[in-house]
């Protein structure tokens, strides 16, 4: 399945934004995954830690918001500077 590569896209994008915003660590990340997105939420949550290892998100908590459409949306993230 493609959840791992999509999770890696998310990590890449999150790190890019975190660096740009001068954050040191991402503590929490929220995504929205719709029923019609073609993404399985459970497998996404399962592969997320692997994708996040050795990144600014290695300790990040993943929050998945559900919806009924095709959304695969990077909603927000909580970062700190330590």
């Amino acid at each position, binding site marked *: 399945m493609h959840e791992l590569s999509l999770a890696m896209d998310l990590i890449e994008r999150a790190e890019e934004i975190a660096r740009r*915003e001068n*954050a040191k660590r991402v503590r929490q990340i929220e995504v929205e995954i719709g029923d019609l997105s073609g993404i399985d939420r459970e497998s996404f949550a399962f592969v997320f830690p692997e994708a996040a290892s050795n990144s600014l998100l290695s300790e990040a908590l993943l929050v998945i918001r559900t919806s009924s459409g095709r959304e695969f949306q*990077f909603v927000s993230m909580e970062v700190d500077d330590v």
Partner: protein
Amino acid sequence: MCRDCGCSTVKHRLLSDFNTSHHHGPSLPTLTLPNNKRRISVEESLFEKNQNLARKNRQWFKSQKLVVFNVMSSPGAGKTTLLCKLLPKLALDHRLAVVVGDQETSIDADRLKTAGVVAFQINTHSACHLDAKRVMDAVGQLGLDQLDWLVIENVGNRVCPAVFDLGENFRIAILSTTEGEEKPLKYPVLFSEADLIIISKSDLLPHLDLNQTTLLANLRKMNPNAPIITCSSKSGEGLEQLADELRYLASGKETPDVSRYANTHT
């Protein structure tokens, strides 16, 4: 969701200047939280990377005057067999090639070559769908200036190929008679966004208990407009009609790359 960039339509309405700001302003809205934390509001689609590449593909195909079909179905619905039957005839009056995606092996490309069709295999390995980048990489090796049509046989999978735009002009969804009446309802994205729906393996109907009326009603529920063609690669039923339909689509009497994407904004 917006098929153009993959963002949710709600965001579009909120954006006053789509072209310049979109979701990519230099600094994102940030909320300060206790304990030195901040919440950064990102609000962007993670399909956007693929959408951007698909848009580039689409522009490039257009500049090459190339018509591109993306053929999708479950594994075994009969995509390769159908293309082997159909394309040699169409190749008499169109310069065409097939790019075929499978996780492993070049069996399908070899079958197509044996049938006399120019074919190029993409192996996706672990991935269960083609994406715009893989297609772009493959077509780079094909010499597109020589071509009128490009047919992409996607990886057999009813779910995710449907959400990855490749930059195609037309999406073709195949459902075989052995798959049952309710599949269009269970896999709504594939069938609702198809420009042409093919019911394959009609030669098997006498052996099956398929209720064709129910199947057609379910397809129409998901997709009121796309032509539906029933055919068999074995008996040849419907193949002539299918060839005509492809010619008609490719003739550009409809421009779904504009209308379809506009529709999905609502």
